[in-house]
């Protein structure tokens, strides 16, 4: 057990758990899945022996790691069927959950690479520079994905009117 390492991880957990939860909540199926993913991320970090003292930007580092973990989980679950009734039960629990489901329905129409940039900007309030760092793409790419995605949502909203 390395107490120093765990102290750092504990501090990160305290500072960023809400941010990370929000990220996972938009990436995964349910609130329980999101909590599970965030917990898994920190447990993995605490049990790995990689050098974390050199991490310059913990927030980007954690979001990037969580994103990988979520992608992995989505892949594994892509074949399993979630009963519709489950989703409605969860969504009716509180207003925040209703809102998450509403936003996810809008984002569902977009390619994943666009929806994730939008979500990082609107829900996580990451700057385009931070988004570019998380995704390891140029800032211009992050911006153009955002622009294309928003343009599609804009048209969808216009069509509804």
């Amino acid at each position, binding site marked *: *057990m*390395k107490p120093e390492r*765990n102290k750092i*991880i*504990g501090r990160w*957990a*305290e500072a960023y*758990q*809400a941010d990370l*939860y*929000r990220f996972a*909540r938009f990436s995964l199926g349910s*609130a329980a899945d*999101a*909590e599970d993913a*965030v*917990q898994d991320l*920190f*447990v993995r970090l*605490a*049990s*790995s*022996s990689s050098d974390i003292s050199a991490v310059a930007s913990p927030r980007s580092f954690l979001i990037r790691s969580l994103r990988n973990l979520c992608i992995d989980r989505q892949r594994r679950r892509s074949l399993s069927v979630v009963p519709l009734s489950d989703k409605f039960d969860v969504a009716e629990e509180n*207003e*925040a959950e209703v*809102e*998450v489901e509403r*936003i996810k329905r*809008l*984002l569902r129409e977009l390619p994943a690479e666009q929806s994730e940039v*939008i*979500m990082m*900007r*609107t*829900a996580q309030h990451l*700057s*385009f*520079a931070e988004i570019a760092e998380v995704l390891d793409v140029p800032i211009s790419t992050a*911006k*153009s994905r*955002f*622009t294309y995605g*928003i*343009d599609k*949502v*804009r048209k969808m*909203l*216009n069509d509804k009117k």
Partner: protein
Amino acid sequence: MNCENFKLNIADLFDEELSAEIKREMLEHIESCDDCKALYEEFSNAIKALTPKQEITPSAEFSARLDKAIAAAEPKRQPVRRVLFRIGGAVASIAAMFLVVVNILPATPAKAASGYFERAATKLGQAQSLFMRLSMRTLPAENFDYTDPSAEFVEHTIQRVGEAWRVDKGDRVAYSDGGQWWQWVESWNNGWKGYGSPSELVSLMVNPHLLLQFEQRLADEFSGVVYETRTDGGCYFVTVTSPALGDWVESNYMYMSSILESDSRREYAFDRRTKELLAASIYMLQGEQQVKVLTLDQIIYNAPMVADDISHLPESIEFVEPLKADSGSSFVGISARQAAIKTFEAMKVWDKELLAEAIPFVDIERLRDDYQGVEILEVKEAVRSGLYVGYFVPMKVKYRNGKSEELMVAMRNDTPSGGWILDGGI
């Protein structure tokens, strides 16, 4: 700014990091262009629709649960440094295990399984050549015994022609002409050579009949094992569930570190007509969970191969013989604990000659940055664990940079000189 430029850069307006000047230019443009102004408003509305107004937070008890989970997380053992070579340990330990077992008349499934193991072992033993493909959860450069249920599957190719064999797991390859073996990791630019078998699992991979003979003996003599059998078409299936093998009285340090040292379930499929082994799977059991860690996907009996097909060695790698006649010779007649202390004291003053003798498996110059000047803070009594042939010495040390660390230093004395060498844990 023109309309084209504005549309291209519209995302900038929604980025707080945008320079004030560009922002002013863009805002000036919309004041003078109704189309772009409409676009900007629609963009703003779309973004508003996608921005949560509610606080999206985890449940009230999540924070406490997370803290608890982090505190309970056990650091993973570092595989590369734990034990470098494991020669001959399992055979001795397994033999010892049989001695302590009470003989009980085997139940019928065990008896039936035993018959299949025996005939399939004979078939494997008789084959002039074997070609096998298996997948195992491990790391491509790691020692052949290393198994990690959380790792991805790594494909192994196993070829045997007469007495010669070759095992290739991607980054680490071993070849033997029947007498000497060579083992190398290209990405480390390291190669070793020696006699006998370079690893316990490799012995079983290249001599799968030994595994089946072992299973047969287990079925005949060991009482703590559960057998299930079934037939399906032309196949006969045997499932064996058994506890981890080895010595766990003093320490569980090596528990779950290899297949044999794990509670496991092993599934074998045999051809009912020819009695040949067709496929096998091994699961590690962790409480209620089971993780498949190894599958034998293909066996070709009497594959058309000759010894020359498997004998090539990489030219760029220099092979060192880790166990020389004098390895450990200054560490004869003392305990594992004393040998570990003596080795660390040699590190402190960096006694090159003594270290070369005590740590034969590693280029000691590579250790110098980390270990020169190291101080021993505490040394506990040496313990045995699992199937490891030597002892583990629990130590607490302090490095030159002021950091301290707890180590499980692997010491063994099955060397030509009978003296102790350091085999891992640093």
